[in-house]
């Protein structure tokens, strides 16, 4: 049969021109096919609808489903598959990503979707502004391209790490769905599991945190991994541009903890970012002290818990140990007194009264000095007259 097919399709000059279409080559390179994963599959194994030769001018799409049923099923439910069902011409079919007669196994370095090269395939459409312009639901191309500079993208491109995630590592492959779809691997409720696929230890820590608890209770604001780390822009904490670089942490936490609406809705402690910024830690960090404590230094990060939780690093009983990380001398005695102190009587009465005392004292002192000077100069001028 294959020999029969190649009698025509083995001719490099064979083309097809249908009305309204550019002429396309119908040539099949025997050598390429032989090297491919499907070298031993009969032509009709993929190309159905051939009952006699010469076959009809227009054949159905090549059929991958016959063998790849699971993949086909996943694809049908994906955003791509749903687009295809709506006859969207931009949507990728099997061949668009995997190639046609030249198809090789995904693990094969020559594969278009081999992990180190796979991002390029997605970018062919997702980083093409002409295609995104036609589909308002698609994310911005800049966001997609940002992946290339991310710690994941760099690990793949620069270090050749196949364990670092490419697009499919987080979004899934055939079943890819938009983030607002509850079935998506990158849906808010699934992100932690997705990241945890590689970052298993972190996932275990995170699962018990107040953020994860709130998230599972249905909070729409509680952060999952991407809430703090970003997604396509994700960078190592050592990168100064990272959202979780020590200098940027107060801003990242403050995005929620200094947002009035969120603070009110969840009954969070108020003025955390401001009181930190006014503290010695905050000032030192702001002006370049790399060792100065930020939010995460005391509260922890993946395992962050409220101070009312005895396992929390900022629970009263654990404060000596937490402060002691940097200040080895700080003992139980040091833990007396509040940490985020506000300029109010209730928050820190001692500080409030000393502050008030000095305000008055300094004011009165100034008046006394100025009054005395005025008196001496008055006396001097009066005597000179």
């Amino acid at each position: 049969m294959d020999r029969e097919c190649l009698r025509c399709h083995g001719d490099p000059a064979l083309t097809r021109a249908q009305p309204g279409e550019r002429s396309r080559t119908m040539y099949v390179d025997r050598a390429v096919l032989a090297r491919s994963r499907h070298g031993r599959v009969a032509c009709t194994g993929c190309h159905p609808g051939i009952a006699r030769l010469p076959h009809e001018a227009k054949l159905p799409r090549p059929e991958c489903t016959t063998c790849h049923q699971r993949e086909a099923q996943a694809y049908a439910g994906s955003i791509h598959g749903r687009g295809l069902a709506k006859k969207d011409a931009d949507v990728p079919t099997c061949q668009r990503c995997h190639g046609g007669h030249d198809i090789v196994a995904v693990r094969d370095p020559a594969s278009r979707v081999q992990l180190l090269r796979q991002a390029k395939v997605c970018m062919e459409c997702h980083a093409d502004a002409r295609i995104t312009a036609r589909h308002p639901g698609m994310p911005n191309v800049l966001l997609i391209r940002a992946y290339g500079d991310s710690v994941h993208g760099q690990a793949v491109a620069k270090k050749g790490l196949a364990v670092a995630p490419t697009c499919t590592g987080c979004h899934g492959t055939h079943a890819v769905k938009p983030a607002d779809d509850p079935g998506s691997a990158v849906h808010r409720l699934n992100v932690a599991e997705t990241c945890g696929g590689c970052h298993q230890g972190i996932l275990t820590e995170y699962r018990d945190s107040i953020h994860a608890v709130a998230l599972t209770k249905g909070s729409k604001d509680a952060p999952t991994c991407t809430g703090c780390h970003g997604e396509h822009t994700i960078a190592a904490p050592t990168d100064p541009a990272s959202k979780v670089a020590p200098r940027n942490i107060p801003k990242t936490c403050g995005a929620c903890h200094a947002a009035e609406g969120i603070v009110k809705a969840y009954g969070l402690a108020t003025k955390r970012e401001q009181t930190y910024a006014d503290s010695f830690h905050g000032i030192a960090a702001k002006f370049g002290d790399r060792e100065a404590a930020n939010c995460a230094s005391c509260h922890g990060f993946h395992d962050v818990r409220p101070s009312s939780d005895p396992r929390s690093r900022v629970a009263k009983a654990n404060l000596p140990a937490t402060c002691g990380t940097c200040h080895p001398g700080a003992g139980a005695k040091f833990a007396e007194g509040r940490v985020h102190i506000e300029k109010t009587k209730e928050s820190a009465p001692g500080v409030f009264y000393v502050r008030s005392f000095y305000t008055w004292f300094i004011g009165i002192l100034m008046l006394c000095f100025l009054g005395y000077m005025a008196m001496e100069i008055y006396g001097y001028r009066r005597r000179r007259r």
Partner: protein
Amino acid sequence: MASGETGRTTIQRFTLNERLQHALLMLSTLVLLITGFSLLFHDVWIGRWLLWLEGGVAGRGLIHRWAAGVLMAVCGYHVLSILFTERGHAQFMQMRPRGQDGRDLVRVMQWNLGRPVPRPAFDRFDYRQKFQYWAYGVASATMVLSGLALWFATEAMAVMPKWMFDLLALLHGRESVVIFLVLFLWHLYDVHFRPEVFPMDWSWITGRISLADLQERHPLEYERLRNSGAIDGDGNR
């Protein structure tokens, strides 16, 4: 007063040693105030600019602590000189506040405001100078003690609760404003802009005061020196 001062129109008021103490205190206090205020005013442009000049919080801290070291050394030397040197002890004894100082202040106010009273006669240090000495001394002691706790934070945390630490940090910042006022509003007025001395009382550099000024400003001391024969009488005026 030392002999050998007869026959001259000026007399030594401050020894070189005392003038050096003053100069070192002046320099270290200035540096401490500048580096301290850059932290106190970190959220306005002047503080940010100063912090940048000083090389961030780390550089600022280093300069501040060096200056504090100089200040503490001078203060320590000063206390030792009071305890163990004749000159230092004698100076200190004359610096002690007395009830007369309060009465002098009231009299000066009456005199300036036109009441028919004579100007009070001062001894070697008048009440203004004593106020300066003690205000600076008490404020410096406060600053040194609270500053040491902040400097050796880790050690301090072992013995004091956080709220006390917060109080000390606050105290350190506010007391610096008091020192600033005492020095810049009061002391600078006193030694530069007071009509009697304008544009400057030079004795902090020369160490000397004219007999005329001594007789006018410190008549009791003048009388005592004349009676002891340490200086000549009216011939020098």
